[in-house]
């Protein structure tokens, strides 16, 4: 019963609580087990390269990756490239975010605006950012403008959708109360619509920034001479895969921090909302 149970779907469910001591053991084991594979992989990887089973050029050993990371960090190069990338994301997201918020608000508040703009919006969002890049390159060149536009487009779509649906999903009774109190548009916006739609909008912000970060990496891979994406291209061209892997790790880490940080704020917001109503 004990070992076979591991592959049993019954076990996956919180059906029968474990005895406490066993549960504690399991939980400790769960954390350890999760680390087991990565550690094992790293060790095998390191040994495999040291024993020349695979060439260090194809798969630089973890120690080298760590070393490269240390060097890049110490020289300030990593931070320099990252700050350029982050600045691009910031500007692009500000543009796309402001536009998305406005568009979502306008379509959410007015059925007429929705009727005019939603189909076009859907058609544009249908084509992934990647599809727009060649055309944008021809129209605006490959300078900063291109990066800002690509990130802005990636950010705009989820933010518009979430703002729009956030407003549309406000319970009608809230709006009725506002009507009874004869709230004007501004008051309605400030007191009813924005607070009620805020959680959905914020989810949009979180999605949007994650998308913006991914879009940045894409556009930097395609056309850039600085930034974290360029670091990868550079590393690849010189066949320094340790550099490539460092950049991958940083990209993953920044994505994670963005997502988790915003998720944290989101929970705070939701708590506030529960208290507010």
């Amino acid at each position, binding site marked *: 019963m004990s070992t076979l149970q591991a592959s049993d779907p019954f076990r996956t*469910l919180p059906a029968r609580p474990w005895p406490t001591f066993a549960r504690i053991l399991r939980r400790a*084991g769960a954390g350890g087990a999760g680390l087991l*594979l990565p550690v094992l992989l790293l060790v095998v990887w390191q040994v495999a390269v040291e024993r020349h089973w695979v060439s260090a050029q*194809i798969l630089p050993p973890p120690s080298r990756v760590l070393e490269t990371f240390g060097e890049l960090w110490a020289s300030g190069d990593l931070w320099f490239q990252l700050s350029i990338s982050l600045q691009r994301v910031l500007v692009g997201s500000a543009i796309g975010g402001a536009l998305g918020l406005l568009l979502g608000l306008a379509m959410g508040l007015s059925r007429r605006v929705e009727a005019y703009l939603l189909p*076009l919006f859907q058609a544009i969002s249908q084509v992934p950012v990647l599809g727009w890049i060649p055309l944008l390159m021809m129209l605006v060149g490959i300078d900063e403008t291109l990066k800002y536009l690509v990130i802005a487009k990636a950010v705009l779509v989820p933010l518009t959708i979430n703002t729009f649906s956030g407003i549309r999903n406000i319970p009608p009774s809230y709006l009725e109360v506002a009507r009874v109190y004869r709230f004007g548009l501004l008051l309605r916006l400030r007191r009813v619509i924005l607070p009620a739609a805020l959680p959905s909008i914020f989810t949009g912000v979180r999605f949007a920034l994650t998308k913006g970060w991914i879009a940045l*990496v894409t556009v930097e891979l395609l056309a850039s001479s600085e930034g974290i994406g360029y670091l990868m291209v550079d590393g690849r061209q010189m066949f320094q895969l340790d550099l490539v892997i460092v950049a991958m790790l940083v*990209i993953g880490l920044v994505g994670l921090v963005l997502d988790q940080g915003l998720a944290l704020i989101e929970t705070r917001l939701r708590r506030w909302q529960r208290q507010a109503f």
Partner: protein
Amino acid sequence: MSEATRKRPDLRGWVVPAALLALWWLATAQEWVDTRLVASPAAVLEAAWQAAVSGELWRGLAASLGRNLSGFALGSLAGLAFGGLLGLSRLAERLVGPTFHALKQIALFAWIPLLSAWFGFGEPAKVAFIALAVFYPVALNSFEGIRSTRRELLEVARVLGLTPTQRLLRLVLPSAAPAIFTGLHLGLIYAWLATLGAEYFFSAAPGIGNTMIDGREHFEMDQVIYGLLVVGAVGLVLNRLAAWIEARALAWRDGGR
């Protein structure tokens, strides 16, 4: 807030696109912009027509779709197997889950330089990249679908004395089916995106993404725009197709209610 009458087909959605199209046409016809750089709508149609007649469009499309589907097949099979394993086995989840979730954080396109170092710039690298793009959503959704099997149903299965195989086929898979299909649907969307990306980043070979990159390099905007339209259209068709298959495959669920 005016409530529109929803009886007649709503044509208002066409107003802005039509106006933009007219503006584009005017701008090129009146030469407000340099027509050597900015293609006119007529030039785009002409380019698309030429490509369709000469067969270039179909060759590119066939190459892209072939790549797309082989990557999708590989990635979704691997994703189903992996997600299924993680869903059915706690041990596997504890061992591999954290690694999987950590690797998931790395943006898809960030894999390209590494993949190109391992697989070269040819067709294998493209298919591997597409497969990777499909793998994540399929694995994640299969895993979550299987995990969400309802406890009461599993208890019924236990009472009925179903064997593990029966339980898997009769209970776990059907109840995970909606999530699995969602994963496959997402996978199909990602696959198309990845196909485009693969054609941009890896070496030149026939394909619709390549048509666009080519057009950009030779400053032929007509080619870029018709490529863009084809990419959008294919994405739309794939999306619709997936939704249709999904509805078909899950039709039994509504019948039972």
